[in-house]
């Protein structure tokens, strides 16, 4: 896809991980520091992003469009959109966060990190490990010792679910 400049808006193609193509206005991708530099310096019209799943790319493009339309009068609407945007299963949220970090979309990265933080804060230790597929490298003795250090933190109910 060639970018046309004659009076029309510049068009750009993004290629997701599964070779699916997304055609959008170049002005939209300028919100991404990475893509902005590619477009400005290399004058490309098609950018392959093999590490980003198409599903994730769809979400991000959706965000870029909404964010470009943001005005003081639809601020509330945008906030609601943001809330819904991160209201996905955690695995998908992490995919988005990784992609947003790669693309360097700074405002959205902050929002995603906050969403990840909000998701894990009330979880139990076991749930956090399951969510992120982290193996504990503590010995059982170490673990029970650390629990004893701050018993007050472990009172009450913690969320064991992994969504």
């Amino acid at each position: 896809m060639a970018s046309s400049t004659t009076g029309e808006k510049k068009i750009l193609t993004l290629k997701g991980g599964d070779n699916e193509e997304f055609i959008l206005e170049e002005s939209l991708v300028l919100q991404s520091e990475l893509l902005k530099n590619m477009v400005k310096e290399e004058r490309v019209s098609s950018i392959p992003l093999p590490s980003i799943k198409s599903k994730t790319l769809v979400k991000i493009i959706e965000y870029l469009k909404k964010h470009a339309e943001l005005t003081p009068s639809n601020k509330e609407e945008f906030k609601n959109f943001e809330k819904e945007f991160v209201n996905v299963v955690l695995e998908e949220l992490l995919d988005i966060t990784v992609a947003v970090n790669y693309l360097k979309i700074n405002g959205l990265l902050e929002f995603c990190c906050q969403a990840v933080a909000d998701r894990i804060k009330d979880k139990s230790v076991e749930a956090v490990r399951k969510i992120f597929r982290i193996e504990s490298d503590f010995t059982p003795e170490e673990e029970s010792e650390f629990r004893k250090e701050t018993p007050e933190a472990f009172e009450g109910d913690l969320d064991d679910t992994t969504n």
Partner: protein
Amino acid sequence: MADLGTADPQSQLIPNLPDDVALQCLARVPRSHHPILSLVSKSWRYTLSSTALYSTRSILRTTETFLYLNLRINSTFHWYTLFQNPNSQKSRKLFPLSSIPCKPIGSAYAVLGPKIYVIGGSIGEIPSNNLWVFDCRFNCWEMGPRMRIGREFAAAGVVNGKIYVMGGCVVDNWARSMNWAEVFDPLTGLWAALPSPIEVRNKWMHASAVVGDRVYAMADRGGVVYDVGGGEWGSVTKRLDLGWRGRAAVVGGVLYCYDYLGKIRGYDVKEDVWKELKGVEKGLPRFLCGATMVNFDERLCVAWEGKRNGKEVDIMCAEIEVWKDKDGGLSGNILWSDVILVVPNGASIVHCFAVDL
């Protein structure tokens, strides 16, 4: 984030997420959840107690304010922090911290960044020039650079990231008169003499506060003000001198303390007038035996000793939202008020601090 470099490079904090992004996620989790998350893995534990985490929190402006208390129980000093379990309905409680390695009496105190500075105080009845520093991030004490001269019952205040200390010494030689006031820069770790005119050099200070960039130090009679911006010394007004009792706190430019009837009132520096804080009478006792106040994230936090029975004392605490009314009066709303610790009779609150972490 150089600090993370020494963690096991094989284990990413969150698989598939670069460590600096994972750090940004963890830095946004409220600190009360950190003990639980520290148990996830070694790299999580390491990161959650790293300076990198705390500097990220301050860059992201996700710091929270925590209350610290210094109590005197059976003539020894005990340090506590207020902890509220976010997952439990149980009320707020004070949890003990490691105690100061040395026990100076009559120290001055200052909070700067994540650290509480314990300045001078006498050891074996000799004024010391020690600086003890409690790092609230890691719950540990360290010794800081010594002042140029020893002090007890000095005044201290923080303005623009530097600690100003004055008084607490008898000006009977050249060194003491040159160094009656000193300023500490934590970035260089150096103390420097702060020139002062002879007439302001009072000996013992019973209270201090900072309003704007002016440090107020109250002596037994009268008091001094040091304007850091202009580098000028002055004296405090008679009204402020007569009305100031105990450990005052400055919230929204108003200096709050209790009056002779045990009610909270605020002093408006611009108007030179004391006003009663309205709206809080019903929820609070009369502070006839005093109260310690601190600015807690722009709210007024009050700690006091409440009577329980003959053998024990309740350490009480209340957090109050305060504001100026349209007519210039001061009003408050008690957000919560609670017993935070029960201690043996005779115990008392030495000082109360708010630290952003």
